[in-house]
């Protein structure tokens, strides 16, 4: 497979259980490089869980899941799978940025320190460069003047924007957004979308879990509708949103205000 054609993310029959509860019931999907895929679906359908699997924060129990051609968390030699060492997993994650649904900012660091931490420590980039990059990113999400505030001193929307800047500062190849605009006002949603559009144009692949259909329509290259741990429908966002094929999708979309 040539590098250009190789999908950035490829999931085949991904299954995952929590105890006896099957969260993911065989997910199949592919995300091409530079593609923006939106995932929508009702609460509890397994969207966050799937994102966490891509990052190997959760272990999948059956199926195959690979990022950029490499299995997530495993090495394959011949027929056999070998678990990766912590160090290798960490290296794999350097290329995958993630914005958590609950932000998970580091409370003992200021906004700026939050953004600078990983490039400095995990990538070992020079401090001066990281600082400039971090400040530029905070500027871009409209928080330049709040760089020295601690997370507890920021409003919900401000925290969410710091989380986005933090993930971007790693210059990942793939970004996973878990409801990145849930705490934002419409104005900021617009701004953050601009940021993301810029990223998409610069060739970054993105998977975005969102409840904003407008966003999916405007920015998404593809849209996946998930329900009860399954991919129910997938395709071009405009098509899926205007002309859903499945009963379940239609029911869901009819509720959108």
């Amino acid at each position, binding site marked *: 497979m040539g590098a250009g054609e190789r*999908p950035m993310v490829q999931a085949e*029959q991904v*299954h995952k259980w*929590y*105890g006896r509860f099957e969260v993911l*019931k*065989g997910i*199949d*999907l*592919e*995300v*091409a490089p*530079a*593609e923006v*895929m939106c995932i929508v679906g009702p609460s509890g359908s397994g969207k966050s869980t799937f994102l966490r699997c891509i990052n190997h924060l959760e272990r*999948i*129990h*059956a*199926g195959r899941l690979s990022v950029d051609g490499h299995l997530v968390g*495993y090495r394959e030699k011949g027929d*056999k*799978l*070998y*678990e*990766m*060492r912590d160090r290798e997993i960490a290296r794999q994650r350097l290329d995958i940025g993630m914005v958590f649904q609950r932000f998970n900012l580091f409370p003992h660091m200021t906004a700026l320190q939050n953004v600078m931490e990983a490039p400095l420590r995990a990538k070992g980039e020079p401090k001066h460069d990281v600082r400039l990059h971090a400040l530029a990113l905070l500027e871009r999400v409209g928080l330049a003047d709040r760089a020295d505030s601690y997370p507890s001193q920021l409003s919900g929307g401000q925290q969410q924007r710091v989380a986005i800047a933090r993930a971007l500062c790693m210059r990942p190849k793939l970004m996973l957004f878990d409801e990145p605009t849930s705490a934002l006002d419409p104005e900021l949603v617009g701004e953050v979308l601009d940021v993301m559009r810029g990223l998409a144009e610069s060739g970054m692949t993105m998977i975005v879990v969102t409840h904003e259909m407008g966003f999916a329509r405007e920015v998404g*290259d*593809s*849209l*996946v509708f998930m329900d009860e741990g*399954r*991919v*129910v*429908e*997938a*395709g*071009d966002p405009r098509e899926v949103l205007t002309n859903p094929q499945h009963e379940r999708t239609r029911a869901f979309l009819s509720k959108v205000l």
Partner: protein
Amino acid sequence: MSTSAEVRPQVGAPPPEPIKAIPVRHPGRWVAMGVIAVLVAMLVNSVVTNPNWAWDFQLENAFAPPVVRGVLTTLWLTVASMLIGVTLGVILAIMRLSPNPVLSGSAWCYVWVFRGTPVLVQLVIWGNLNSLYREISLGVPFGTALTTFQTRDLIPPIAAALLGLGLNEAAYMSEIIRAGILSVDEGQSEAASALGMSRMQTLRRIVLPQAMRVVVPPTGNETISMLKTTSLVAYVPYVELFFQTSAIGSRTFRPFPMLVTASLWYLAMTSVLMVGQYYIERYYARGSVRELPATPLQKVRMRLSRRGI
């Protein structure tokens, strides 16, 4: 850019093979285990063969009636003093964090004095209160006394031992509990207040149960340390395990083997306490981790049932 997401028919598809991956090999672990095994073997060998440990002498004395009595005394003294310590410690911690300056000030002073002076001295004072004050009078301050007690009748040795250990422990426990309370997210008590719960209800129902996760391990420390601190009640004077073993040691001029005997008794009691601590920690971890790991017992049972036994 192409829309490459696709849906495959899934109805009726058999669940795929579960992932079976070969775990990371850790040759270092095996080497380390080998080294540890050799070291342990050497230690065991020397402990068994070296006559200085005097195992036969220890065995002879380890279960002598005075020693066994001592073990029981040590145990109940530990439990009773820890009960006093934890109860009073919770009260002191709450006082310390209260906005009321009188309460927080007195709690601070209590902790300062009781933590700052040696428990040995506190025990000596409780045990010998009557060398300071032959009698204690209740009555008008600086005025006439109404009732007068002989201190030496008022505080029997057992009370002095419990007072000394318990009041001292309370000072330490209050700091541990204070740390636990501080570790609970502010949002939790805000949510409780917003629901109309009073300060005390919030503490009892919301904050303290969450604080327990952080409180239990240092409390385990304190309890295990208390086991051995009880030996200081000799100053009251009151008699427990350590007194008995060292009495045998001085009588026979073989103090060292008897120290080892005492240690083994303490180690046995510690082991019981550590098992208890494990389950208490587990109980308070509920809800705070996504999945509780299995207990050692459960693991054994799972293995057995897998083999069809």
